[in-house]
């Protein structure tokens, strides 16, 4: 270590250091407590239980479906917000990202009164298409998509704004149609943001609780995802709650670490 670096480190004011360390402890202690109480010996037994595996499988299916829907609708929405100036665009952006800051239970209530069987729009879905969303697996997917898509939209929108559009111009002069240029130039350029936004949306969908339980209910095998199962198990079988929590923590931590590497790698390539 050079003397200059040492000098800079010792210049860190003590109060800042103390507060920062308290913050670190604040984030670390809950995990310490959880891991301390984990039933490491019976881990595999609990994971082998039918109810846990059902919840895990349902969570995976619904969160991946929600992420897929977030891509299908979210990327065009991000494009619209980033590239097409229209009056009221900031209001539309606020509306489309509201569910990020909304209490999830409120999102669930809103979905219930609009897409529920008696809801403003849900009644027609029921009557015309015989589609019922509440208390079904599709209801879970809708709730997860509703709260997770904004993470993808704002990430991708920011990336689209930063794209140097002259590269797209260059591609067009080379004979690329708009769609070809989007696929071959724009998408590779914003790839880090697509990955980051997709992972954020997926993690949010995986952890979704409030909107799901309010809109889709809590039926094992149909709508009872991992977070719901964890909450319920805390009442009946705390050991099970601990095991599911550890699985969710492991998944989230893995995603975060993986994302960091992918993101930094991609960002470096984009800057170079």
């Amino acid at each position, binding site marked *: 270590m050079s003397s200059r670096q040492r000098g800079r480190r010792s210049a860190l004011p003590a109060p800042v250091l103390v507060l920062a360390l308290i913050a670190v402890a604040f984030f670390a202690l809950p995990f310490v407590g959880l891991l301390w109480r984990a039933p490491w010996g019976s881990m595999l037994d609990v994971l082998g239980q039918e109810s846990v595996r059902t919840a895990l499988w349902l969570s995976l299916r619904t969160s991946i479906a929600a992420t897929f829907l977030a891509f299908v609708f979210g990327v065009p929405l991000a494009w619209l917000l980033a590239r097409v100036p229209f009056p009221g665009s900031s209001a539309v952006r606020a509306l489309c990202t509201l569910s990020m800051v909304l209490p999830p239970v409120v999102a669930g209530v809103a979905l219930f009164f609009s897409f529920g069987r008696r809801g403003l729009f849900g009644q027609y879905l029921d009557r015309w298409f015989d589609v019922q969303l509440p208390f079904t697996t599709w209801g879970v997917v809708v709730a997860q998509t509703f709260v997770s898509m904004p993470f993808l939209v704002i990430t991708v929108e920011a990336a689209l704004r930063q794209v140097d559009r*002259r*590269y797209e*111009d*260059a*591609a*067009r*002069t*080379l*004979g*690329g*149609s708009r769609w*070809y240029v989007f696929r*071959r*130039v724009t998408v*590779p*350029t914003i790839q880090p943001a697509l990955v980051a936004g997709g992972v954020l949306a997926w993690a949010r969908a995986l952890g979704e609780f409030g909107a799901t339980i309010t809109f889709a209910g809590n039926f094992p095998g149909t709508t009872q995802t991992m977070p719901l199962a964890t909450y319920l198990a805390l009442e009946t079988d705390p050991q099970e709650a601990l095991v599911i929590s550890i699985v969710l923590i492991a998944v989230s931590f893995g995603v975060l670490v993986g994302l960091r590497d992918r993101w930094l790698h991609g960002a470096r*390539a*984009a800057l*170079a």
Partner: protein
Amino acid sequence: MSLEASIAVRRGDFDLDVVLDVDAGEVLAVLGPNGAGKSTLLGALSGLLAIDSGSIRIDGVVLDDPAADVFVPPEQRPIGVVFQDHLLFGHLSAQENVAFGLRARGVGKAEARTIAAAWLERMGLESFGSSRPTELSGGQSQRVALARALATDPALLLLDEPLAALDVRTRQEVRRSLRDHLATFSGMRLLVTHDPVDAYALADRVAILEDGRIAQTGTIAEVTAHPRSRYVAELVGTNLVRGVVADGVLVTDTGARIAVATDPGPVFAVIRPQAITLSLSPDPASSARNAWPGVVGDIDRLGDRARVGFDGELALVAEITTASLDALQLRPGDRVHASLKATDITTYPV
């Protein structure tokens, strides 16, 4: 083949209104300072910008004509563009960059790769096919950009400030190689630049752009010898001589001898008219290493300056103030002496 363009574009406070023609096999340089409308012109020709009125045709085919409601999008125009910063796609290799236009136009992957490889070889870059753009030097990157633009066989090649992105040292070398490569392309070429030296080195004909209007067009010799306005005179009104340097003496194509302070070899030399001194009698005590007797040619008064033609061993244009012109009472046909310091001559290796 020919390009006929009459372009009017209004963007906010700025408006561009020009008429341009480029003939088959010709290199036209559009020369003007930043903000004169060069980028707008390229945007209109390439189709990245729709014109407000006028028309753009290549070989009689209309590419843009608002009155007839015709607009051909950029991807369908037979036009290749070499951008100022080259704009190579960072996520693709050099070869994939060159193949991009072919792939976009539906050429199969294998065939596009073969054609791209051939282009890289032609540019002397056969060993850089798998290199990423960041691994290329400025000159190499430009040759890839040129190959990429030419690979789709455009009728018209546009070059946007082809040398501006390069540092001074690589510039001369790249200018020379660019000239050689441009010479092998038989289509029309139009380059925009703010640097008269690029125009001299690369173009047959020049159009001077000033505030969105063409101030003057003509061959380089015509425009440099007879600039029609003070603006054009300041931009390009200079003396241009080609020749070979040996032992500190530049022998021109016409046999004149000029003392220069440069390395030996073929060069073209730029002599600023302001650097030339005219006097009625030779001054043996002067430090100027060049002094020629001759006669006064045409005299053009441009404001408080006068451009005075000089015919001697070498034909030159000198620029002096109208005050000294009147003091010397120079008239066409008068005998004068022109002198010039060797250090006032800028040479560029050819």
